[in-house]
């Protein structure tokens, strides 16, 4: 009985914010003490009429997709260079933790000067470069878990059978690392999608991703619009999560 109650408390705790976001996104005139104001879909409708939030969503999607693909590709290239045919020193990989550990907003503030000098401040390319400081080391770290002893020996085996490096990468490394590539694509997408600090500082308000919009809407007390933005933010991760869940459970049935 106690355990059931505890479980329900935890489950309520984790689902409250979702409920709040959904409720607020369909409410108008949310004055105390009414629990839910008048229900309306008005805040969603404006999305179709070229509202700023629709723009933000597209910007966020574009940045996150670019980051996801580019970081995975660059991370994979670096990973191959570091690991292919040899065992890399973990010391080198350890460097990858540093940009990841520091708060993005602080990193952005400290780098603002250089971005300005290079003319990248307040531009999309600046934001992409800034985010890659986090996503590329992350991708390299993630791919480093792929290079098991078995993979290294299998590629050596293929080489002695006559396969050149490029063929080994195409025939052995690539097919075997598909799961890592998928994971890396997803994770880099999410890192970029959820990122606020660097984008705010380096984007200088000119690159308005969804997170930046939520923050500014929240500080303007435009509650309903911020809630709509929150719901939009939740969509892609939910989709990814559902696909992953499907995949895992369908594998379990095999």
């Amino acid at each position, binding site marked *: 009985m106690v*355990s*059931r109650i*505890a*479980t329900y408390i*935890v*489950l309520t*705790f*984790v*689902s*409250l*914010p*979702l409920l*709040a*976001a959904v*409720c607020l996104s369909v409410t108008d005139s949310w004055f*105390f*003490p009414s*629990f839910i104001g008048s229900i309306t879909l008005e805040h969603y409708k404006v999305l179709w009429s070229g509202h700023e939030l629709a723009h933000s969503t597209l910007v966020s999607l574009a940045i996150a997709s670019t980051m996801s693909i580019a970081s995975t590709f660059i991370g994979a*290239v*670096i990973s191959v*260079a*570091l690991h*292919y045919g040899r065992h890399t020193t*973990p*010391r*080198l990989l*350890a*460097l*990858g*933790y*540093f*940009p990841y*550990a*520091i*708060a*993005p*907003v*602080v990193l952005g*503030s*400290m*780098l603002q*000067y250089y971005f300005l000098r290079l003319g990248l401040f307040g531009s999309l390319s600046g934001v992409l470069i800034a985010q890659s400081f986090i996503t*590329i*080391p992350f991708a*390299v770290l993630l791919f480093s878990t792929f290079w098991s002893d078995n993979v290294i020996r299998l590629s050596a085996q293929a080489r002695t059978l006559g396969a050149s490096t490029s063929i080994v990468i195409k025939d052995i490394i690539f097919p075997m690392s598909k799961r890592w590539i998928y994971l890396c694509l997803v994770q880099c997408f999410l890192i970029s999608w959820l*990122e*606020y*600090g660097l984008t705010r500082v380096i984007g200088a308000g000119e690159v308005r991703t969804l*997170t930046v919009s*939520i*923050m500014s809407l*929240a500080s303007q007390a435009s509650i309903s619009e*911020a*809630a709509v933005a*929150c719901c939009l*933010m*939740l969509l892609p*991760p939910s989709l990814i*999560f559902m696909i992953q*869940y499907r995949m895992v459970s369908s594998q379990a049935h095999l």
Partner: protein
Amino acid sequence: MRRAIKYLFICLCLAPLLFGVIYSLGYSLGLAGLLSDGFTWDYWIGLINSGNLMRSTIYTIGLGACSLIIAVMAALVVSWKSGRYGVDHRSSISKSKAEVLILLPLLFAPVTAAFCWYQILSPGGFIARASFHLGLIHETSEFPRLVNDDLGIGIVICHVFLILPVFSYLFTATAHKHRLHRLYLQSNTLGASSWYFFKKVYTPMLLQKNMRVLWLYLIFLLGTYEVPLLLGGSRSQTFSVFIADKLTRFNLGDIPSGYCMAIWYTVLITVMTALYLRWQKSILW
């Protein structure tokens, strides 16, 4: 080619940090910046004397540690429940649904979570409204302050929300990997109660196995920005809020002290990360 890529990786990891620290150091010592008049320690001395350095450090670490401890305790209970120790395996609440639900916070960006919790916890928020309708309070001022308070209760709640699923999953997986179920049965046959096992075996074992991950999360928590920005009080500021605030305040003379704090924070994080890596090394290398 390979060597070039290797150096590229090193640059990518170190250059942003080094460049940032050098510029900040220049600024904080009066060597860079439009209003600088040459070398001075004044900004550092000022920051230390104002007590802001100590205050921010204690406040940030305190908040991080509190969030971590509460999240860990909750996650231990959750993983214990989902492991069904001492409970019939065909137990009531559908296992998969509950376990999927607990992962829900993973979908949230910190800024989303902070916004939602603000709307839930503020004196005009959902809980306050519910309390009003239940007759627990009669006006908003009777509702306890949970957001923008000096203790950072709202921040801690939001942090716990964000990291709870990670730890729950981690603990469940570790328990599974180390077959704690078997140990549990073993300990049962030796006459230990479930509680005793939870206290003396389960908790210490999981904590010990995951100490490094906890440390890493503490590092991350010291750098959160969006959550304290939206939910924090006006009296104490975490590192990142303090830095961002000083750098964009109207008083241009405040900028160097923001950079001082940025350096102090970076050094702290670098040392903590280095410790983490050394720790990892002693186990793995």
